[in-house]
């Protein structure tokens, strides 16, 4: 409930920004960080995330005249980004190179990016450890579960938004999210 309330608040703020599809520069400025963040969190490779961000906005630019405002521009862009992640993940020709790159590069230490002044140093250290465990757990999730998990807990989208972005039914989104959370719980050892 608390997450849903936060999500509604976020959507409302974004919804107040009137962006015209013809003003592509404004769209780029407004949504590029979000698209890049999702691609980066999904693929964990800066270069690939940058390339796919470019692809995402290029596809949107090409299809801008076909945009019928059936959904928000943000949802539309995230749909393209999700499809790009899916295509990239399923492209078997790239998998070998991806694995090679991942083997060569250490997994990003996400806990280094956490800053908090509310807790004691000891509690912060433990929280960082748990955050790193969530990050590791997310890496092992199947592609759909990972996408749903990141859209929910990084992009702060509600279930309906995720359903619109991924093209899944709300029930399917719930199932993927439930399984993803189960994996995260098992990994972190945190039940509630």
């Amino acid at each position, binding site marked *: 409930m608390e997450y849903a309330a936060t999500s509604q608040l976020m959507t409302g703020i974004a919804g107040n920004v009137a962006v015209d599809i013809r003003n592509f520069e404004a769209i780029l400025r407004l949504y590029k*960080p979000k698209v890049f963040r999702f691609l980066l969190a999904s693929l964990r490779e800066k270069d690939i995330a940058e390339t796919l*961000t470019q692809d995402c906005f290029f596809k949107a630019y090409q299809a801008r005249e076909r945009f019928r405002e059936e959904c928000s521009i943000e949802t539309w862009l995230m749909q393209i980004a999700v499809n790009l992640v899916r295509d990239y993940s399923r492209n078997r020709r790239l998998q070998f190179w991806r694995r090679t790159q991942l083997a060569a590069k250490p997994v*990003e230490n996400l806990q280094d990016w956490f*800053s908090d002044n509310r807790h004691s140093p000891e*509690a912060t250290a433990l*929280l960082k450890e748990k955050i790193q465990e*969530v990050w590791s757990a997310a890496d092992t999730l199947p592609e759909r579960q990972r996408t749903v998990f990141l859209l929910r807990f990084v992009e*702060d989208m509600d279930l309906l938004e995720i359903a619109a972005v991924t093209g899944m039914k709300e029930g399917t989104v719930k199932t993927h999210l439930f399984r993803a*959370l189960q994996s995260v*719980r098992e990994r972190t050892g945190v039940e509630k």
Partner: protein
Amino acid sequence: MSSGSHIHSLEEILLGFRGSVRQWSEEQGNPSLKFRASPVKSQSWMRGVCWAFAALVLCVFARHLIPQGVSREAADAALLQRIDQEVSRTVPGAMQPLTELVSWEGAAR
């Protein structure tokens, strides 16, 4: 590390996770994107023109190529005919007068 006094809820961990991913993404920089200045429609229009031009060039090339082939064949045929005429004598030139003296029908008997 003793975690007994510092049990974080999953919600708290996930909020920390969100903040960390966002911070990490921001630190990775803002990717600069480059787009072609020409709109999509003109690109497809230009592509059509290119194809039409290529087809035209191919037609012109084919038109010039085929008559050349025909004239070359005709010239070759004329040359072969001339050679055939020159070498088709039954008797060499120096022995030609002898053929007038000998009756082939009589010799055959």
